[in-house]
């Protein structure tokens, strides 16, 4: 991070590019952000990115917008957050403004739908790749509890249609209880 102005510019350009590429729902931006801010720029740590995702996920509003506010705040304070929101909102604003001029043509276009079908498969692969990396990180801890939480939350969200807020609250409580128990035992490293 050399010059503060170039840092803000980089923030803006990064979020602008990421937002212009998030097809298929808000979650797609998480792997892209991870790649950009954790792997490439080293502005955010691996664990921290998961924490930010949890906050973005459980706050109201679009996940992509929430996640970029968090990243912007982390890197450049409130001004950084303002810049990343702008970077995230501008691409859809411009694209939809243009599309609204001829939206029936876009809606019925065979070419657009073929490109979209290909991209959807690509997006699926991007998310799979990130999930595999995240699973590797979790299994490295060699503890049973995180894996149990993982499997149960997956079942809860996928098969039992449990509200996301409920899952977040319950898992937070499990984590807190686990830490308190370990501290009582005098494990120390918790």
């Amino acid at each position: 991070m050399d010059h503060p102005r170039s840092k803000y510019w980089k923030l803006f350009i990064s979020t602008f590019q990421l937002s212009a590429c998030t097809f298929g729902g808000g979650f797609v931006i998480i792997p892209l952000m991870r790649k950009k801010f954790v792997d490439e720029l080293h502005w955010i740590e691996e664990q921290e990115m998961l924490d930010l995702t949890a906050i973005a996920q459980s706050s109201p509003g679009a996940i992509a917008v929430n996640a970029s506010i968090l990243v912007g705040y982390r890197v450049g304070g409130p001004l950084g957050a303002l810049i990343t929101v702008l970077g995230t909102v501008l691409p859809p604003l411009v694209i939809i403004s243009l599309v609204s001029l001829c939206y029936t043509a876009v809606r019925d276009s065979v070419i657009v739908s073929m490109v979209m079908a290909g991209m959807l498969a690509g997006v699926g692969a991007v998310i799979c790749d990130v999930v595999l990396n995240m699973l590797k990180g979790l299994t490295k801890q060699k503890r049973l509890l995180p894996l149990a939480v993982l499997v149960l939350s997956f079942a809860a969200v996928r098969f039992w249609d449990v509200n996301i807020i409920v899952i977040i609250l319950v898992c937070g409580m499990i984590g807190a209880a686990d830490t308190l128990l370990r501290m009582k035992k005098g494990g120390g490293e918790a």
Partner: protein
Amino acid sequence: MIYLELFWSFFQIGLFSIGGGYAAMPLIQRQAVDVHPWLTMTQFTDIMTIAEMTPGPIAINSATFVGIRVAGLSGAVIATLGCVFPSCVIVLTLAYAYYHFRGLALVQGILSGLRPAVVAMIASAGLSIVFMAFFGQRSLPAELANIDVIAVGIFIACLFCLRKWKLHPIAVMAGAGAAGLILYSLF
């Protein structure tokens, strides 16, 4: 005052949609079709289709679309502002709290409980997208015969590029779009 109405409607959509785009859809329908005469039901369905085809969050896309139809470009900007305003306030507060208190052991504990849950949610969302690409629906269908072979091929090729050659996700997605255009026009 149309700008105020636009701002307020999308402020509510931004405030009450928790858990991403699919939670926002019914709220958008309520505000833009039922409460205000901004969109017909057909237009609403169209904008949902277009929101899926274009990048960006569904709520922002529809805010822009509705705003521009009702009050031109400035309407689009006002509606978008209304949509992100609640996020800005709430998420900034949480961000401040997170960076202030994350050193505490108890907060660390809570966060360590959340991390695997976040991975599970991303995995589930990813699975929905993969099923959508392969079968055109978000869950595994009863009969697997209708599988889209081209989509499966693109998926496997993309995953290989990502894991083996560590290509950039954006490059992979662009390649997937190009591959879709070529393969679907050929077959």
